[in-house]
Structures are given as structure tokens and as C-alpha cells.
């Protein structure tokens, strides 16, 4: 590949002309590769930008919003929380273990580059049904890969999601969120400030990894040729990443870094052009100084290699020796590969040849931008009109409860979460299994609460509501832990944006997410867009995944998702005949149809206020949001969590199956010790949230009116569903 033709690299004719007019000449190989990588969908957000711009990004709590490696939120006491969600679905589809592992590595470096120590991972995952061997292979590989990488580097995986849908066969969705902490006054930025400062490449050697991966692999639809794009998959080295984390933390603590940027998509080109563009500077690069893993790499390969486990540091010349000493201590290679200039250009030399000279801004900021055509999918209205609420009720309600509880979407994810270290670093107050993970801020009683949520069925039926529900549910989960929702990050997983239906879904999802975030006061601090998740013309369901951050002042007051004996059970919020897109309809009726539940932001916000207020006054014993599977599942999870049964009756006059399985939004199930009943009901009144007393906890049986089962029975169904699907037909390899 000596003369990469621009089309093979994914540039259109118009884009190529734009490069020519920027440079006033034809680009050479290296320059072409740089533009192709930086102007790919993955790096330039060319199809999504116009929509993302509408999202609310401001708030007094936001220290750094979208546009940097990760968002940063002020969580009080001089501490900053850095967080970001990212997708690694495409590599995971062809090599699940390494694809997912390197996904963890990449998002960790995003957080690290803000100067924060990575303290937690969450992994929202979507697969096709486990009845198919291929999907079992994908799940097993992805989970083992995330586990191997996260466990090895000592960052706990404290939450996530695992959901299943036919639309994800062939196209799994692998998102990973990383959370980091730093003193607010010690954040580092990805800026190449200070003319004369040195650019130091720290970490792994550069090889021919993922050359063109950005433009070719991530930005094109998977097809038969995917099998041949093999070299684009990479092998992660978590050990090296661990050294990189420790070395960077030591450099930051010693104040030795002017700037820090990870090398991700588009490699050195992206890191240098973005950090120079942000600072309004330029950079001279000596490609001959880049430590190479393979001999004879061409300039374009060195410039766009996506080799993992590398960081670019901006260093004052007089501090270079100290920087190198720290790298040496941790056994890391470091090399001065360039310096900051005031030219505004990225100029790269290899030997005595200038191999590239292009304006930094043209790469980083002036990429193409498209307002692609939008069109609602045909037959959506028909689908929406088919409301499963009108279907016949199940003949056996008790059986229905057990089936929903044993549905892989709802059932215990222990098989997955046991493969993750969720306690290393010693601050995990609540990990997998809680509605939100709760992480103590070391040495204080304060904690952050974290949740990731997304609902593919809702997104499929109404992408606006799907994304809005993702925000609402994530905030509700955080509020159920007693924490105030503060801000979100997100990952938008969609099909091919060049198809008007997909682009319509995307636009609607962004609109829904924006409206929900505005209404709930949780601005968007960053995120990631993953397009082209489709095979042939069958795309994944529109999957907006939201990562919510909240704060609680005293983690000891955080309600647990577990009933204790002798408590009073309440349902908060109102239940309507809403089973469109519900777990119930899919499991019992085989239908994903109708409209998703309505969402009234005012009611939603009121519920959160009540939960946070009640927790802070220590009147909540347990809390669990109502989501997939409705009240039935929320009650069961609380009973399983605390090994404690209950006897309740549901309010209102809905038919029993709707009362049990409706997924009406803005609801939660809580329990309260008898002494706090009055105080709690008064708070409900005060916050204007309907509070219905359902019954009491205690004993080994779970009784919901006429439906009766034992906790042991429920546990068996809940715990064995996924292992039964996996282990009875496990494949090794």
C-alpha cells in the first residue's frame, strides 16, 4: 500500500477536494492518510455533529464539557469526577476478547489524560440471544476480555448492563464507561501549550496496528470482507497499561506535565493535531524518533498507527530528565518525538524528508459536516398501533412472574459480574447488583453513585422516548441510591447514518436525550457515537446508552436494594396500562410493539427529589427503581437482595397482569421501617409523589395478591437462567 487511493481510505470526492483546497496542492500519502483518519466518521463526527450541538452542556457543576477526552464534574470538596463512555463494538464483533479488552484500555486512557486516577469501570453490553452458539462465543469472549483487562490494571468494574435482542446477533454492542477522580485544581488538559515544549511519547512501541482501522474498520458496515480485515484487531497489554497509569499519576502528582493526551483512533495524528488545535499552536514531529515495533514502517503508518497503551505528554525541556526518570522507574519507554511550535501546522519529518505539513486545525476542527437526510422508518406507525395492553391476560400469572424473572434480560448477571473484580481500591460501597454503584470518596463519608442505562426496545419503537427513558432511568437508579443526579455521559449506538431511517432514529434520540437532560438538570459532559452497527441492511436497535453520575453526602444513608424483615413496602408513582415495548410483552407475547411508556419529566424529577430527601433523612431502608418487568421484578429483586419475602396488594384497578408488569416510568419500590412510616408519607406529600402502601416484608414467601411463590423458587429461576443457557452448551476456545 504505497499510494493509498483516497476512496479506499474512505474519503469522498468532495472531501478529497476539500483537502486539496485546504493545502492548495495535492496531499501526499502521509497527509492523505492523516485526513482520511481524522475526517472519518469515528474521529470527525461528521454525520452527528449537527445534532449533538443541540444537547445541553452547561451547568455550574460542569468543569469540562464535551470536546475533551472526557467530561469533568465538580463533586464538591475540591474534587473532580472525570467520566466517559465509549464503544468498542466493531472490533469485539470479530475478536470478542481482544476487542473488548482494548476497549477498556482506550477509555481508561481518556480518563487518565485528564489527570485523573481511574477508579471504576461500567460495561453496558448487548448481544443476540444465547440460544445461538455465536452469541455465546461473543458474550464469553467480551466478558473475559473486559475482566482480564480491568482486573489486571486494578480498576474495579462496579456496574453495567447485559441485554439480549435478535437485532444484536452479528453486531454486539460493547460500551465501556470509565470514571476517574482528581483534585479539581490538578486537572491536566490535552493541550500542546508553550512554544518550545517537548512532545514526549510514553508507553508501548508503535506497530502496524489498526492502520486505517478508524476509516476502514470503524466507519464501514461489517460485511463478508470483515474476516479479511484482520490486522485491524489488536492485542491489549493490560500490564503495560497499568504501568502507564502509575507512571502518569506520578508525573501528574509531581507537576511535571504541561499537557497529556491519549493516543486512540488516528493515533499520533489525532493526539498531536487535537492538542495543538486546542492550544492554537503547531508541532514539529520527528517520526524517526518514534520507537517502532516493526522495521520499515512508512510515515503514514507511524502517523496513523493505533497501537495501544501509548500517551503523549507535553513537557517543559528543563523537566525532561525528571519525566524520563519516572518512566524508567516504571519500565516504560519514552521518546521525545517533537516540539510545540507557533506555526499552527503539524510538520512531520522522517530522515531528512518533510513527509507532511498540514494545518492542525484543518485536521482537528475543520472536518466535513453533514446534515444527512432523515426519514421515519416505514411501518413504525403500524408497530406503534399494536398495543400489547389489549392482548389476552396470561392464564397463569404466577408462571408469568417466573418467566419474566427468568428472562435473560432480567435474570441475574452473576455469571458475568463474578468475572470482574469490583472491590479493588477498597471503596466499593455498592457494586454489581445494586441499582447504582456507590463509590466512597476515600477518607470521607461522601460517595459518587453511577449507573448506565439504555433500552433498545423503547428505542426501536420510539427513539425519542427511548433515549429520554435512558436518562430518566439512569437518574432514577442513582436517586434510588440516595444520590443527587448531576450529569451524564453517553454512547449512541446506531446503524448506518447514510440511511435516512437510521439518521432519523439518531436525530430523535439526541432530541430525547437533550430534552430529558434539560428537564432533569443533568447536562451532557461528553460521549461517543458508534455508527455502522449493522450487517447487510439489518441494523441494531437504536441504542442510546446513558452513564449517570450522582453524589451522596453520607454513603451510610444510601438505601440498599434489599428488603429486611418487618418493613413497610411502598410503591412510589403511578401505574398505567403501559406494556408497549415491555419485557412482559416480549417474553409472554413475543411482541416488541406499541408505544413505550410515557414520560413526564416533572413527575420523574419529583420522584428523584423524594428519594434523595428521604434517604438523607435516613427514612428509607431499601429502594429499587421499577424498570424492565415492572413492579413484579422490582419486588422480587428486593426480596432476593435481602433474602426476605413480603405480602403485598397493588393499588388501582388495572387488571392484575398490567399492574404487575406495566413499565410506567417515574416509579420505585421502597421499604421503610415502621417508625419512619409517618415521616415518609409526609415527605411523599411534600414532594407531590403518589405513595401507595403495598404491604409488609418478612418470611420466606413472596405474595402479591393471588400470586404466591417462595424466595427460594424465585432465586432458583433468577440465578440459573443465564448459566443454564451458557454452561449447558459452553464452547471453549
Amino acid at each position, binding site marked *: 500500500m504505497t499510494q493509498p487511493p483516497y476512496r479506499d481510505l474512505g474519503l469522498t470526492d468532495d472531501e478529497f477536494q476539500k483537502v486539496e483546497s485546504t493545502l492548495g496542492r495535492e496531499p501526499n500519502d502521509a497527509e492523505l492518510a492523516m485526513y482520511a483518519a481524522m475526517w472519518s466518521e469515528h474521529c470527525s463526527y461528521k454525520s452527528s455533529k449537527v445534532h449533538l450541538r443541540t444537547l445541553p452542556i452547561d451547568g455550574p457543576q460542569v468543569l469540562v464539557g464535551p470536546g475533551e477526552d472526557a467530561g469533568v464534574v465538580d463533586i464538591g470538596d475540591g474534587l473532580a469526577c472525570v467520566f466517559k463512555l465509549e464503544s468498542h463494538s466493531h472490533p469485539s464483533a470479530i475478536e470478542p476478547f481482544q476487542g473488548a479488552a482494548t476497549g477498556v484500555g482506550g477509555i481508561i486512557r481518556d480518563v487518565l489524560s485528564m489527570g485523573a486516577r481511574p477508579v471504576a469501570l461500567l460495561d453496558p453490553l448487548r448481544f443476540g440471544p444465547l440460544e445461538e452458539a455465536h452469541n455465546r462465543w461473543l458474550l464469553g469472549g467480551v466478558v*473475559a476480555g473486559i*475482566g*482480564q483487562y480491568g*482486573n*489486571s*490494571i*486494578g480498576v474495579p468494574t462496579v456496574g453495567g448492563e447485559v441485554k439480549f435482542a435478535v437485532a444484536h446477533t452479528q453486531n454486539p454492542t460493547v460500551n465501556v464507561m470509565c470514571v476517574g477522580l482528581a483534585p479539581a485544581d490538578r486537572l491536566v488538559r490535552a493541550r500542546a501549550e508553550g512554544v518550545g515544549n517537548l512532545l514526549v511519547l510514553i508507553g508501548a512501541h508503535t506497530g502496524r496496528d489498526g492502520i486505517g482501522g478508524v476509516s476502514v474498520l470503524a466507519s464501514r458496515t461489517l460485511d463478508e470482507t470483515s474476516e479479511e480485515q484482520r490486522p485491524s484487531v489488536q492485542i491489549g*497489554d*493490560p*500490564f*503495560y497499561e*497499568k*504501568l502507564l497509569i502509575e507512571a502518569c499519576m506520578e508525573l501528574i502528582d509531581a507537576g511535571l506535565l504541561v499537557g497529556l493526551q491519549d493516543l486512540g483512533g488516528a493515533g499520533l495524528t489525532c493526539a498531536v493535531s487535537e492538542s495543538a488545535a486546542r492550544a492554537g499552536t503547531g508541532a514539529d514531529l520527528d517520526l524517526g524518533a518514534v520507537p517502532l515495533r516493526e522495521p520499515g514502517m512508512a510515515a503514514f503508518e507511524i502517523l496513523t498507527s493505533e497501537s495501544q497503551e501509548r500517551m503523549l505528554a507535553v513537557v517543559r525541556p528543563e523537566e525532561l530528565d525528571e519525566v524520563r526518570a519516572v518512566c524508567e522507574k*516504571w*519500565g516504560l519507554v519514552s521518546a521525545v518525538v517533537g516540539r510545540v511550535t507557533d506555526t499552527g501546522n503539524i510538520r512531520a519529518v522522517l530522515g531528512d524528508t518533510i513527509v507532511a505539513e498540514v494545518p492542525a486545525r484543518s485536521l482537528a476542527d475543520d472536518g466535513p459536516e453533514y446534515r444527512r437526510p432523515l426519514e421515519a422508518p416505514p411501518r413504525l406507525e403500524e408497530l406503534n398501533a399494536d398495543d400489547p395492553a389489549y392482548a389476552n391476560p396470561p392464564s397463569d400469572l404466577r408462571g408469568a412472574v417466573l418467566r419474566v424473572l427468568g428472562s435473560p434480560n432480567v435474570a441475574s448477571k452473576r455469571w458475568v*459480574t*463474578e*468475572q*470482574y*473484580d*469490583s*472491590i*479493588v*481500591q*477498597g*471503596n*466499593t*460501597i455498592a457494586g454489581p447488583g445494586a441499582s447504582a454503584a456507590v463509590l*466512597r470518596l476515600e477518607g470521607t463519608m461522601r460517595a459518587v453513585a453511577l449507573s448506565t442505562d439504555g433500552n433498545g426496545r423503547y428505542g426501536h419503537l420510539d427513539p425519542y422516548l427511548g433515549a429520554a427513558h435512558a436518562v430518566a432511568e439512569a437518574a432514577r437508579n442513582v436517586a434510588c441510591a440516595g444520590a443527587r443526579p448531576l450529569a451524564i455521559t453517553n454512547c449512541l449506538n446506531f446503524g448506518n447514518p447514510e440511511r435516512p431511517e437510521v439518521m432519523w432514529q439518531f436525530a430523535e434520540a439526541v432530541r430525547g436525550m437533550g430534552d430529558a437532560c434539560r428537564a432533569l438538570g443533568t447536562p451532557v459532559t461528553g460521549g461517543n457515537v458508534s455508527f455502522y452497527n449493522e450487517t447487510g441492511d439489518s441494523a441494531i436497535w437504536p441504542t442510546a446508552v446513558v452513564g449517570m453520575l450522582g453524589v451522596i453526602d453520607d*454513603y*451510610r444513608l444510601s438505601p440498599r436494594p434489599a428488603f429486611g424483615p418487618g418493613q413497610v413496602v411502598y410503591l412510589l408513582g403511578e401505574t398505567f396500562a403501559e406494556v408497549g415495548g415491555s419485557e412482559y410483552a416480549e417474553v409472554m407475547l413475543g411482541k416488541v410493539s406499541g408505544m413505550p411508556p410515557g414520560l413526564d419529566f416533572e413527575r420523574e424529577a419529583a420522584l428523584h427529589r423524594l428519594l434523595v430527601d428521604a434517604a438523607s433523612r435516613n427514612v428509607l431502608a431499601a429502594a429499587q427503581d421499577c424498570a424492565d418487568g415492572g413492579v413484579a421484578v422490582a419486588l422480587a429483586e428486593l426480596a432476593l437482595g435481602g433474602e426476605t419475602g413480603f405480602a403485598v396488594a397493588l393499588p388501582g384497578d388495572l387488571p392484575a397482569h398490567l399492574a404487575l408488569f406495566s413499565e410506567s416510568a417515574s416509579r420505585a419500590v421502597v421499604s421503610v421501617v415502621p417508625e419512619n412510616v409517618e415521616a415518609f408519607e409526609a415527605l411523599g406529600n411534600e414532594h407531590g409523589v403518589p405513595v401507595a402502601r403495598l404491604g409488609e416484608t418478612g418470611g420466606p414467601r413472596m405474595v402479591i395478591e393471588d400470586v404466591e411463590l417462595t424466595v427460594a423458587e424465585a432465586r432458583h429461576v433468577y440465578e440459573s437462567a443465564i448459566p443454564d443457557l451458557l454452561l449447558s452448551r459452553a464452547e*471453549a476456545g
Partner: protein
Amino acid sequence: MSTPTVAVVTFPGSNDDRDALRAVGQMGGEGIAVWHRDTDLGGADAVLLPGGFAYGDYLRTGAIAAFAPIMDAVRAHAAAGRPVLGVCNGFQILCEAGLLPGALIRNRTLTFVHRRVHVRVETASTPFTAAAEPGDVLEVPIKHGEGQYVADAAALERLEADGQVVFRYCTALGEVTPDANPNGAMRNIAGVRNDAGNVVGLMPHPEHAVDPDVGPVGGQTLFESLLSSLVGAAT
């Protein structure tokens, strides 16, 4: 009388080193951070090799770390009859270094496993179990991919005969059953000691089991035993 000190060695890839230092402090001792390239233990009374993935667990867990410069000091400390504790990866390193018998191979399930388990104390004749009674049941977390304890038949018999098995996986009631064995370890072995009794290794993480806000508290017994035996030795 001064506070007993425990050196915690950080190898490249150690993860629970900070957690171990914190636990030592919470239990009333003083932790001393030691780097793998150091050649002495900073005069510490005891040494703890922490959990994690030294050298990425590449090749074989603990294999490369066993060659670290600090290991000469650890050997000397052990030879002098002073307390050495290996937790998880630290246990693997002690086995690789020949300071403990046996080896740890991949879990029977082939998957990493993180869960709370119970272990039964089999002997009080170590500085880390002196405050316990044989038969006591401790709740502690495990988190490892290669924790299946193996040894050849002769070594196993010797271990049993000499009372060198320190912990066994068991139920909450202390029964040693196959179901209570999380990784396939021979005879449910979770931890062993050397002949002299001063070197102990175990797969569970006592340092993650001292603070009730974040976990169970079964690890307190090990630290209490150690710290009081050190205080006893000093008086």
C-alpha cells in the same frame, strides 16, 4: 512500645498494595511501602506480598516476580523465622519462589471468579492465625483466575500430616464441601504455610475484609493475629 510495622511490596502490576497498606493501618499497624527493586524491607517486622497481576500474570502467575531483587530480602526474612504473608498474587509468588509448597493453576471453570467465600481455619500455629481457633470460619472475598491449589500426592500428604494447610474453603457453617470450593483447589485448600509456620500464603483477600462498610470482616483475624504476635515477640 512501638507500633509493629508491615512491609508491603509493590511489584509492577501489583493492584492491592494500597489496600493492604490501608488495612494494616486500620488494624493498628504501620504499613511501609517497599518497591520491588529495593533490596531491604525497611526494617519491617513482617512482610506482605499483595494481590494483583505482577508482570501481567504473563507466562505463569508469579513466575517473573519471583526473580525480583526484593525477593532476596523476603527469603532472608523468611529464613530468620519472621512473618511473611502472600495474598493471592503474593501467594503465587511465594510458591514460584519456592518459599511455599505447591502451585496455583487456572480455576477449574477457566473463568476469573470474584465472590465472598468462607474459609475454615485449620491451624493456629502461624503468626496470622494465632488469635483464631482451628475450626473458626472467616468470611473473605476471593478474586482470581488462577487460584486452583495443586501439589503432587506426596507433597499433599506431607502438608496434611504436618498441619501445613492453614485455610480450607467451606460453607458458612464450616463444612468442607465440593460446592464450597470456588476454583477446584485440591482438598479445598485456600491457604498453606511453610514447615516452620512463619510463611503463609492464601488466595482470599484479608485486606479487603477489615472494613465493614466495604466488605466482610473475616480478614481482621489475620491482622489481629499478626499484630499481637509481633507485639508479643517484642515484649
